[in-house]
């Protein structure tokens, strides 16, 4: 049973008691937000601490790529969160609301690829929406039902959203305990508009982790937390660990290019391609 006892940091009211001790306590609380056990943790202590335990359930979280080319990795970030949301629930499925425009521009979510990231395709229900309003509308309805592990909507385009729509979405999310994730692709300037989201993320691709023979490794990304209702903004370098289904901050050692020694035996043949690495 998730209990909602954790105090949000903003609830400290200095007007009632202004003794130095209580102020110190208040500052300590502000500096280190309380951990809410009901939230959806990333599995990486540093991120979860900043978020006060993880992503708030029953709230809207907005994700956007930093540049147009980062759209896939932003999708990967969302996929990771969905994997973690599914793991918390035994049977509930995810509702993934696809925007037709995103399917045309970015391609369709690909089952084998989702599976490779650890996402159980059999537990994803796809809804195909032809415009932004349908996406938001479907999300809103889905959030009002308590039968889903998470609701994920993707929106493409910089059409100006009706200001009330995201607000209604946030209200619907607050109605239950379903985490709501909104991926906004190609939104451009529209992302500056205030939105009633609990967190807002900006994701950029980063060189992947170690893999033999200069291959492509586990997905890595830079995740900027630019809005955080339960704490301060932050920036993380994250790697999606497929085997333990968690995000991890890769160790510094791994961020450097691997030294060209101790290569597997078949690597020399490809040595010339490594020149640029």
């Amino acid at each position, binding site marked *: 049973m998730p209990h909602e006892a954790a105090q949000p940091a903003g609830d400290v009211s200095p007007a009632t008691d202004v003794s130095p001790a209580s102020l110190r306590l208040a500052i300590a609380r502000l500096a280190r937000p309380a951990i809410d056990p009901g939230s959806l943790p990333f599995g990486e202590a540093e991120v979860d601490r900043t978020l006060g335990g993880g992503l708030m359930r029953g709230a809207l979280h907005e994700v956007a790529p930093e540049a147009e080319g980062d759209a896939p990795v932003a999708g990967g970030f969302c996929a990771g969160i969905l994997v973690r949301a599914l793991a918390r629930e035994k049977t509930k499925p995810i509702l993934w609301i696809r925007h037709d425009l995103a399917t045309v521009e970015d391609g369709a979510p690909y089952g084998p*690829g989702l599976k490779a990231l650890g996402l159980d*395709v059999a537990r994803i229900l796809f809804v195909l929406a032809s415009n932004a309003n349908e996406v938001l509308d479907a999300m809103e309805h889905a959030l009002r*039902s308590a*039968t889903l592990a998470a609701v994920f909507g993707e929106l493409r385009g910089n059409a100006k959203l009706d200001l009330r729509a995201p607000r209604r979405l946030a209200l619907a999310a607050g109605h239950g305990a379903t985490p709501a994730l909104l991926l906004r692709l190609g939104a451009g300037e529209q992302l500056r508009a205030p939105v009633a989201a609990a967190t807002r993320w900006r994701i950029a691709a980063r060189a992947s982790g170690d893999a033999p023979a200069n*291959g492509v490794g586990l997905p890595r990304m830079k995740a900027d937390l630019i809005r955080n209702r339960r704490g301060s903004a932050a920036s993380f370098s994250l790697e999606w660990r497929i085997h333990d289904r968690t995000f991890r901050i890769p160790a510094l050692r791994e961020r450097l290019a691997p030294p060209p020694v101790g290569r597997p035996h078949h690597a020399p043949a490809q040595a010339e391609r490594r020149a640029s690495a």
Partner: protein
Amino acid sequence: MRRRRQSGALPLEAPLVVVGDRKSALCVVALDDDAAALGLVEDMALADARARFPRLEVAHEDSPADTKLLETVAEYCRRWTPLVASDAPDGIFLDITGCAHLCGGEAELGADLRARLTRQGFHVRVAIASTAGAAWALSRFGMEAILPAGSERRTLAKLPLAALCIEDETVAALARVGLKKIGDLYELPRAPLAARFGKILLDRLDCALGLLEEPLSPRLEVAPYMAERPFAEPVGREEDVLGAVACLAEKLSAMLERRGEGARRLELSLFRADGAVFTVTAATSRATHNPEAIADLFSTRIDVLRDDLDPGFGYDLVRLSVLEADRIDAAQSDLAGPDNAEELARLIDHLGARLGPSRIVWQEVFESHLPERAVLHVPVGGAGAAAWKIADPEAPPERPLRLLLKPEPVEEVVAVVPDGPPARFRWRHVLHEIVRAEGPERIADEWWRAEESRPTRDYYRVEDKEGRRFWLFREGLFGREHVLPRWFMHGTFA
């Protein structure tokens, strides 16, 4: 029932005739009362009619439009009985067995039908009889009447043979031997009659007299469950309609529950006071008899269709019918688990009603070599997802997160070795410098699909300087399938 073409668009000062091609001449196929009063008759050539009355208003017949109109009227007639069969070109059969008492009796039903259709500008002839054949004969050749059961033989005896709905040639042949009225056939030996004029003549006679069963082919299957609500005063407000739907859903729910069934496909018919009928259908992903779920479904559908539903002066009858029912299984085996299934189904139905049922899909993953064939989108209600084997569940993904709808050509590809991975390429106007690459993974065409042969593809997973990961392939083998292989982008990795 008899119907005359009427068109408000035509000026009505002059007598109106409708003409059509008959025996390679333009003949009058229908005429209005004024034209009839002038002594014009059907089947007369237009030239003759014109010669007698040059001031004729002439319209050309439009059979498809007539058929459509007849269908619309037939649809409207479903307000009296669910068993309606249209009898082209100008008739409609209503099987009112067991329905007449709802209108207060056969006479009242007939009067109601006549009043409503006449008000809409149709010329109606109503006859009610125990057999379809007798009703047909009476409405066309006799007087409009309600024929008491058992009196067919006596009444039909006076009608001409054409009233048996037989071919004109047969009628003419019978006339040549002096048989003009139906009654003339009663006393004749049957075998020679059948031998000379065909068995069909006797069959028609027996059908009309009720000696032979004549099946009607109703326009629509009869709904297994149905509830309706007439309004003395037409209602137009959406809230009222939805309220009525909620009421009807309750009624249906009780009926369904008694039989242990649930609705899979439902139809809501809104009968507008002026005769238009709107039907709204909705399907459920799972048999249900929950009245709220049913009402919710239609409120969503009506919300979506609001622009198409023009209440005009209001609806005077609302009918909710279950077109398809299914047994409700006590045990639901589904991914959502027993407690969740009902509500999840409701959500799916709601979204399906809003966006269209085909827009809610599962992804099925197959073992197929060709990446495009490895997934299939199945509408909800289809089979569950099959398995795609992941070689090593801990390794970096071998398949992209998103697959482009069509492989997109990649330009300016520079590869260090001709059959190696690209070192640089341009895709969607952006130049990517590749730092890591893995491959090739050779995917040949599924040779058992003979319809078209595709070149072999060598897939590479690559990562550029910014850390963006792509899945692209080179089409064709060097020197064998293509002189110069082309490169295509097929997907993007997280």
